[in-house]
């Protein structure tokens, strides 16, 4: 399958499915069924096993034809994390049932991994799943769950055997978020808004047919999810000044009277690093395109978080008196985070989350040091003890 064949296939599909004359959902379903959803997925599951890079060919054709998209940012967790995991570990029935409405956006997904007591240490998750007949009863609390309030399904990491060491006693489930045992509460952040949720499960029911992977294999399944999360983050190409640096540079340009020599050098230094990070992102994508992604990618999120925090902290200082203000403390539930839609104080506070969410900067540094640089692990005290005996 080369680009030309694919382009033809897309055109042929469009000739039979005119987006201007079709219901959006019907169009998306048809696109899925035509194997043009994600071309690297297998036939019958929205693709036909083509090379991943070729997806861009399809997107270009469809975009040119004015086709509706599946609103990928809204359903990012499903697309980026749940789908690759279902593909890798799901049964045929699970794939058939779940992937199509996931891709079309009919069913939103959320991720139920983090717990109040298991943040960086995800493998210590304590949410219990107890076998009952042909299913499981799940009780516990998850946290930092975006989209939980709109989600139909959650990918859930739960403890099925507390007597085993922590990595061995986990299993991986698909939880029906409409189950009466599931309660979703908004979790307010320091910005005032609530992007995330807490999810409380009280004897929530999961049929065993909604298990992904074997019992006790949850950690391995979760690794697939997390690896895909890391790939998904920070992947988009941006133009120069496309990120937060653009907002801050704009504030600088608009405020000549607030400039000082000290702030000037700081800004140029931040600008330099932001631009270098952008170049490093371009370099990474060039590596990916020739099939040899470099290890530098693992450091991108770390640098991104630091820069976002320094830039936004700088901006508040630059604004001086106006930095004493905030735009709005109202408890809101935004669908998407948009740094540029809010003011400097919001950016400052929201950026604090960049070094926490999706793996803290501390955990990322461990990963870089051990997996990229090959430095030895620290002595571990938690890997051989039964989970129930771990100090917490």
């Amino acid at each position, binding site marked *: 399958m080369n680009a030309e064949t694919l382009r033809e296939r897309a055109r042929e599909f469009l000739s039979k499915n005119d987006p201007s004359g079709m219901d959006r959902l019907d169009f998306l379903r048809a696109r899925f069924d035509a194997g043009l959803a994600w071309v690297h997925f297998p036939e019958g599951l929205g693709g036909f096993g083509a090379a991943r890079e070729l997806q861009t060919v399809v997107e270009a054709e469809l975009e040119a034809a004015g086709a509706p998209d599946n609103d990928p940012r809204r359903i990012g967790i499903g697309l980026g994390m749940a789908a690759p995991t279902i593909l890798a570990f799901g049964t045929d029935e699970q794939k058939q049932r779940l992937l199509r409405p996931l891709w079309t956006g009919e069913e939103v997904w959320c991720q139920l991994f983090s717990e109040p007591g298991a943040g*960086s240490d995800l493998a210590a998750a304590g949410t219990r799943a107890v076998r009952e007949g042909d299913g499981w009863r799940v009780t516990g609390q998850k*946290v930092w769950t975006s989209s939980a309030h709109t989600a139909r399904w959650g990918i859930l990491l739960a403890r099925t055997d507390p007597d085993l060491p922590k990595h061995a006693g986990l299993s991986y489930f698909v939880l029906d978020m409409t189950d009466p045992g599931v309660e979703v509460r908004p979790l307010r952040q320091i910005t005032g808004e609530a992007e995330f949720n807490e999810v409380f499960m009280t004897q929530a029911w999961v049929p065993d047919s909604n298990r992904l992977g074997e019992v006790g294999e949850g950690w391995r399944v979760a690794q697939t999810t997390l690896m895909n999360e890391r790939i998904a983050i920070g992947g988009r190409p941006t133009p120069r000044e496309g990120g937060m640096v653009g907002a801050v540079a704009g504030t600088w340009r608009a405020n000549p009277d607030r400039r000082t020599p000290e702030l000037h050098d700081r800004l140029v230094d931040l600008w330099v690093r932001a631009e270098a990070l952008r170049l490093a992102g371009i370099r990474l994508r060039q590596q990916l395109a020739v099939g040899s992604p470099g290890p530098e990618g693992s450091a991108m999120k770390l640098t991104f978080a630091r820069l976002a925090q320094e830039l936004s902290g700088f901006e508040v200082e630059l604004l001086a*008196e106006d930095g004493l203000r905030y735009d709005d*403390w109202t408890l809101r539930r935004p669908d998407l985070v948009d740094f540029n839609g809010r003011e400097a104080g919001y950016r400052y506070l929201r950026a604090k989350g960049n070094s926490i969410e999706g793996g*803290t900067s501390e955990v990322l540094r461990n990963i870089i040091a051990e997996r990229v640089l090959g430095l030895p692990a620290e002595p571990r005290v938690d890997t051989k003890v039964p989970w129930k005996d771990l*100090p917490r």
Partner: protein
Amino acid sequence: MNLLYSDIEDQLRSSVRDLLTARAQPSAILARCESEQPHDLELWRTLAGEVGVSALHVPEELGGQGASAREVAVVLEELGRSVAPVPFLGSAVLATTALLGVEPTGPARELLDALGTGGSVAALAISLATMPGSPFPSGVEATGDGLRGAVRAVADAAAADVLVVPAVGPDGPALHVVPVAQAGVVVTPAVSLDLTRPIADISFDGATSTPLPGAAESALDSALWTATALLASEQVGLAEWCLTTTVAYLKDRHQFGRPVGSFQALKHRLADLFGELALARASARHAADSVGGEDARVSALLANSLCSEVAVHAAEECVQLHGGIGMTWEHPAHLYLKRAKADQIALGTPGRLRALLAPLVDLPGPR
């Protein structure tokens, strides 16, 4: 030069701390900060009336405690540690110091008395971002028809029943005493980054006022320099809370089967923070000890610029090292982060203060 805490200062600290521990718990502060009345005026009346914090550096002959700026600094350390929403900076530091700089008779003396008991709360009508040494503000004019003009970002103004307003009239600059409860004064609370010391914008449209005799410019100057010196102590208290709270949390929190505080990378960051705090504390004590003395400006700029950086760093580390919980509204860490960031701006950002300091210590800039 005495950089230690005296026994009297320690006693004062423990009175203040006991009261704040009882009455200004984070949950209570959080519940209040988005309410109609973010300042806790009841707590303030107790602090002022019972502990006597609001007239500390007012001379005894003017009805005050006759203490020095050092004791004021100790109170600020405790208030920084608790981020209690009381109008200490606005009323007891800025407004009171300004009043002490003009002729302390007549209306100035009456107002000092009222502030000292907590019976009245004042705010000095200048932007909280005003740097020490700034020229006398020209935003408010004293006309035959009363005061006219506006001031933005005034600390503690929403809690004040009376304002001390720098205004320029036909006879030059003067400080005016202005009751808030009149048609010519509108105090508009701003949505503030710092939830526990909210700012407000004030407009004057023919406001009735009493001008105070005396050297308004030097009085305002003195208020700004004193506040610059003393705010460093609030930042020290705040940074210390952040360090202590983080250490306690990391001792308790377990991940990977170990207390998180046993991980070396975190230990080293906290050790560095401890080192910064040692510098911050020494410089803040020095600044408090130097108020009114020969080295006052240098020590105020040094302490405020340094402590601003340390407090923000401590608050940012506090949020980060608490992990997810530190990002939540229900955990108090954000109150400290917001105060630290606002304090960094208050009375001048560190870089702007360093630029002021340079010529005073013979470090001239590029030609």
